[in-house]
């Protein structure tokens, strides 16, 4: 199953719509980020990510 990234929150899933924010997803994305502990991560804070999971860095 192709991985798709949400066009709004950049979360990666296999669904047509993001399971978290229900925005459409796109298969054209690049960069990969796994957030394990968003409360203790500077990277997550910089990108305003509050939920652990897999994210893309850029979604087109």
């Amino acid at each position: 199953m192709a991985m798709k990234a949400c066009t709004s929150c950049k979360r990666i899933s296999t669904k047509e719509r993001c399971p978290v924010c229900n925005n459409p997803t796109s298969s054209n994305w690049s960069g990969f980020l796994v957030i394990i502990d968003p409360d203790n991560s500077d990277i997550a804070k910089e990108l305003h990510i509050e939920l652990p999971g897999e994210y893309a860095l850029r979604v087109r």
Partner: protein
Amino acid sequence: MEGSENSIYALKISAGQERNVARMLARKSKDSGVGVSAVLVPESLKGYILVESSTKIDMQNPAFKIPHLRGIVESKTKGKEDKEENTVTFEEVKKFLNPEPIISSIQKGSIVELISGPFKGERAKVVRIDESREEVVLELIEAAVPIPVTVKGDQIRIIQKEAD
């Protein structure tokens, strides 16, 4: 950034396995309780991943026994306090977090090289730029007949900013 004690380490990975290793590392660190809070795989950095961790990364730890993980990048840069650290500063990581679209630096008339696709290695001149779709229309320089080729902005590399 506020004073957090997290450090960012660069790990060497077999080329092409960055995402798999990142996923495995995330799963393993969750189970074993290593202080890894984020794993970053920048597209522009082939063969490496960046790991944000509150504890020092010890390659002897079974949590880091992952196939394709080659080791930690040892840097010999000495800081002001003359300490040898293997960490990457957050400022350096920031530029990977917000990758600037390549297309914004391309101008009409630029000479570019195609880096992927059927015309890989060919040189071409930019004819038109479609910023909304991040596509460029190119004309291959070495082709006998000029044929317009449309490619995505990430498939080209700029050689010369603007030709005469």
